[in-house]
C-alpha cells in the first residue's frame, strides 16, 4: 500500500500526529497531571482584590482573576475539547456518509431529490441554530427557576396536577444537551453527504463495481464491500480536520456567550480584561497565553493530520 510510508515521509505529518497524541494523552492522564479540577478555587489566595496570581507551586501556570488555576483549566479542558470534537464529528461523519451513499445508490430521481434537500441545509448559518436551540433551552430553564409571566414550558401546570416529577427526568437530558453540539450535529453533516455522494456516484460505473454486480453480489454487499471503502478517503480527511475545527468553533461560540461553556472558553473569558495592563502586555501573560496556544495547537494538529492523510491516500494530490 505504502500509505503509512508516504504519511511518515513528511515532517508536518509527524508534527500533526505528535500534537494530536499529546492532547489525547493529556486528556487520558488528566487526573494524574492535575489533581485539582478546573473549578477548584485556591481558597488561600482568595481575596477581595481579584488579581491573577503568577505561577506558583500550587498553580504551575498561575491563576485566573477568580483564583482558579490556569493549569487545571488547560489540562481538564483537553478532555472536554476531545470529547466534544470526536463525539460530534463521529455523528456528522456517520449521518453524512450514510445519507450520501444511500442517495447515490438509489440513483435517479431519488438521488436528485435527496441531495437537493441536503443542499437546503447549507443555507442555514450555524450561529443562528445555536441561538435558536439556546433559546429553546433557556425558555425551559427559565420556567423552572422562576415562576415567570412569560411563555415557556408549562411546568407550573404540571406541578399543579402533580405531574412535575414525572416530567423532569424527561426534560433534564434535553437541557443537558449543548446547543452547539445539537446544531453542529443537525447541520454540519451536509458536506460529508455531498462529498460521499459525489465519490460514490463516480465509482458506481467503475469496472470493478460493475463486475461485482454482474457476478451477482447483492446490493448491500456492493455498498459495504466495494463502494464505501473506496470512497471513504475524502470524508475521512474531512473528519480529521473537523475534530479541530469544531472545537475551535465551539470555543469561539462559548467565548461570545452562545452555547455551553467549556473550561477553555471560561478561562479566556475571565482573563480577557487582564490581557493588557499599564506595565505592558506581558505582565499577566498566563491569563491568556497558555490557553490560546493550546487552542491554536489543537486546531493545527488535526489540520496537519488531515492534510497528511490527503497526501498519503491520494498520491496524485501529493504534489499540490
Amino acid at each position, binding site marked *: 500500500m505504502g500509505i503509512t510510508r508516504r504519511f511518515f515521509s513528511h515532517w508536518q505529518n509527524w508534527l500533526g500526529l505528535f500534537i494530536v497524541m499529546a492532547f489525547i494523552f493529556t486528556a487520558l492522564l488528566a487526573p494524574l497531571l492535575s489533581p485539582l479540577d478546573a473549578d477548584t478555587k485556591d481558597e488561600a489566595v482568595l481575596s477581595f482584590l481579584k488579581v491573577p496570581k503568577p505561577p506558583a507551586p500550587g498553580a504551575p501556570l498561575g491563576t485566573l482573576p477568580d483564583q482558579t488555576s490556569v493549569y487545571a483549566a488547560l489540562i481538564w479542558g483537553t478532555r472536554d475539547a476531545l470529547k466534544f470534537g470526536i463525539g460530534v464529528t463521529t455523528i456528522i461523519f456517520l449521518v453524512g456518509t450514510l445519507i450520501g451513499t444511500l442517495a447515490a445508490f438509489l440513483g435517479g430521481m431519488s438521488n436528485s431529490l435527496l441531495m437537493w434537500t441536503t443542499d437546503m441545509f447549507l*443555507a*442555514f*448559518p450555524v450561529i443562528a441554530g445555536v*441561538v435558536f436551540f*439556546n433559546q429553546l433551552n433557556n425558555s425551559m430553564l*427559565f420556567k423552572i427557576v422562576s415562576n415567570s409571566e412569560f411563555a415557556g414550558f408549562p411546568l407550573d401546570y404540571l406541578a399543579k396536577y402533580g405531574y412535575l416529577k414525572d416530567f423532569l427526568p424527561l426534560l433534564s437530558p434535553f437541557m443537558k444537551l449543548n446547543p452547539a453540539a445539537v446544531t453542529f450535529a443537525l447541520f454540519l453533516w451536509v458536506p460529508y453527504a455531498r462529498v460521499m455522494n459525489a465519490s460514490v456516484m463516480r465509482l458506481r460505473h467503475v469496472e470493478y463495481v460493475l463486475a461485482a454486480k454482474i457476478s451477482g453480489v447483492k446490493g448491500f454487499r456492493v455498498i459495504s464491500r466495494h463502494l464505501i471503502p473506496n470512497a471513504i478517503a475524502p470524508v475521512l480527511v474531512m473528519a480529521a480536520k473537523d475534530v479541530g475545527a469544531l472545537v475551535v468553533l465551539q470555543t469561539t461560540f462559548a467565548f*461570545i456567550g452562545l452555547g455551553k461553556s467549556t473550561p477553555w472558553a471560561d478561562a479566556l473569558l475571565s482573563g480577557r480584561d487582564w490581557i493588557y495592563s499599564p506595565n505592558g502586555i506581558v505582565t499577566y501573560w498566563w491569563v491568556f497565553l497558555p490557553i490560546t496556544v493550546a487552542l491554536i495547537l489543537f486546531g493545527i494538529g488535526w489540520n496537519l493530520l488531515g492534510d497528511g492523510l490527503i497526501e498519503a491516500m491520494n498520491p496524485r494530490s501529493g504534489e499540490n
Partner: protein
Amino acid sequence: MPILRRLAFSILRSVITLIFITAVLYASLMITPPETRASLYMPKKTSPRMTDEMYQKLLQQMVEKYKLNAPFPVQYFSWAGHLLRANWGYSPNLQEDVFTGLMRRAPATLELTFYAILVYFPLGLLSGVLSGSKKKSVFDRLFRATAFVATSLTPMILAIIMMVVFYITLRWFAPGRLGTAFEPMIGAEQFRAYTGFFTIDGLLNGNPQLSLDALRHLAMPALTLAFAQWAILGRITRATIIEENQKEYIIAGRALGLRERTLAWRYALGNSAAPVLTHTMLTAASLMTNIFVVEIIFNYPGLSTVGVKSLAFIPDAPSAMGFAIYSTILVLVITTMLDLLKAVVDPRLRESF
C-alpha cells in the same frame, strides 16, 4: 435572456429553500407547548400592571385565536402568512418589533460585509493565482504558510490580538460602530440616511469626519473577517488554478508561445471562476456565521445583536426565530447573486442555460 431564466430559477430555488427552513424551525417549536408559539403573536405592548394570571389568560386567548393546537401544516401556513405581512412578532428583550429591529440593523452588517469583501476578494484571487501558477516558488510557500496560520487562528484569537495592538497600544482603531462624539450627528434632524452606510452617508451629508470615524471603527472587524476569508478563498483559487494548469488547453497555449502571465490571468483564472464561485456559494452560510462572530467580538451593532439579545434575560422566541430567518434570507440572497455572477463570468454557463 438565458441569464434571466437562470435568475428566475435561482430565485425559485431560494424560495423553496426558505420554505423548507422555516418549516423545520417551526417544527422545532412544535416540540414546545403552544404557549411558546403564542409568544410569536404577542401584541406590542402588554401592560406592565398585568398580573401573572392575566398574562396566562392572554396566552390562552392567543392559543385559541391562532389555533395553536391545530396540526402542524395549518399552524405553519397561518404563521408563514404573518411572516409575509412583515408581522414577525414583538421581542420583549429588544423592546421593539422584530422585523423593524432587523431592518434597522441590517445596514450595519451589510456595510461590514461590503468592506470585508472589498478587501479579501481581490487579494484572495490575486494570491491564489500567483501561488497556484508558480507552484513551490518562494511566494507559494509563503502564501501557504500564512494561509495555514490564518485558518488556524480563529476570529476570536485574531480579534484579541487586534484589540491589543491597534486599539489599546496604538489607538488607531476602535470597537463599536461610531465614536460617542459622532453618535448625536446620526440622530440629528438634518442628517439623512441615504444608504445606511455611515462611511458613505457621511460624505453625502458633507461630513467627511463622520465617514472617517466610521471607517476607523470598521477597520478591525473588517480586517479580521477579511484575513480569515482571504485564506479560504486563496487556497481554493490556488487548488483550482493548479488543476486547470494541467489541462490541455494551457499546455497548447504554452506550446503556441503565449506568455505565462496571459495564460494564468486570462485563461486559467477565467476557467477557475466557476468552481471558485461555486465553492463560495456553498460556504456562504459559514461566511455569515463568521460575520456575526466578528460583530459580536468587536461589539459592532449589526444583526447579531438581535440574536445575542434574544438570549439576554427573558425567553424570546420571536427574536431568535427572526434572527434565524433573516440570516437565512441573507445567505440566499448572497447565493443568488453569486450564481448570477457565475453565469456572467463563465461563457459556458451563459449559453448552456
